[in-house]
């Protein structure tokens, strides 16, 4: 094993995390390499120094704050959960639907029987209304007709006599 390759194993060796075969390989190298032996000693010393740092405890309010944050989270409901409404709501919706159906079919207002709903009667009515068009009073009172010049009655009469 080279010194370069030791770089990836030296820390594992110091921490005892190497596999047995790797550990033996490292020890074989260390037996013949003084600089690597020194480095192992120094890394071990560094590791022990890091152990000296104290562990701090979270403040007493820490848990309370976390629980408060969690409690303030909006309750998530899945789409299916939204569909699963309470039985009361289902009952009320069913009753409402039944009521609407009942009103729709049995309480529908009776439509008046109009004369033209029967085709025969409609035709008769139309024929009856045609008389309005023959009403002379209506035509004689029609304003635009009054503005027309009077019919030339005399000329027409003389022409008929000459033909005879």
């Amino acid at each position, binding site marked *: 094993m080279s010194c370069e390759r030791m770089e990836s194993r030296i*820390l594992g060796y110091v921490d005892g995390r190497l596999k047995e075969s790797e550990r033996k390989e490292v020890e074989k190298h260390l037996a013949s390499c003084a600089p690597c032996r020194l480095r192992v000693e120094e890394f071990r*010393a560094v590791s022990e120094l*890091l152990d000296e740092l104290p*562990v701090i405890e979270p403040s007493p309010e820490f848990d309370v704050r976390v629980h408060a944050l*969690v409690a303030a989270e909006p309750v998530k409901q899945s789409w299916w959960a939204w569909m699963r409404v309470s039985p009361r709501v289902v009952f009320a919706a069913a009753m409402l639907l039944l009521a609407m159906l009942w009103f729709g079919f049995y309480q529908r207002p009776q439509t008046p029987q109009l004369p033209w709903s029967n085709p025969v009667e409609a035709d008769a009515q139309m024929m009856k209304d045609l008389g309005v068009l023959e009403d002379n009073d209506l035509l004689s009172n029609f304003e635009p007709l009054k503005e027309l010049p009077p019919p030339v009655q005399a000329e027409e009469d003389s022409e008929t006599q000459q033909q005879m």
Partner: protein
Amino acid sequence: MVRTDVQLMLDVKAGDEASFALLLQRYRTPLVNFLYRMVRNREQAEDLAQEVFLRVYRAREDYVPSAKFTTWLFRIATNLALNSVRDTRYQKLEVSIDAPVTIDAEDGDEKPLDVPEKHPNIEQHLVEDARKKMIRHAIEKLPEKQRAAVLLHKYEELDYAEIAKILNCSESALKSLLFRAYESLRVELAPLVARASGRA
């Protein structure tokens, strides 16, 4: 019988709030310590740890036990810590450990220097405090990713595969990262290292 992290998380997914409380109890101290060593500020570390737990809770419905729970947990924490460290807004709020009027207490709190003058072990206390301060300072001087690797490797005792996943790198890249980090620490802590290895 002690339930595993994955079992607890699946119970949280099923709506069991008590299981979430157990996860909180199990990981609050390691998380706060990891984040404290990453961001160098206790209050900020606790805020970030709360955010980590909140994100875990929010993701409960989508949780699939495809990886170790700790990998997932510390990946969230590492990402938050790295973002926070890089965020200049937070850097302004950081309290320097070099501040002359403070000293690291046993529990890691930064408290005003208030040591009785006639304390019999005052010199010993000061030496120990200076030593801890030096170690912390050496860790803080590491580049962020190296720092995260060292903390996860040394204090959380995660294996290489887990740390590589958390830091989104290969195992060989992680080993190289850790080697460089320990080299920097060895240089930075040279006086203490020499004493510890009997070369002083």
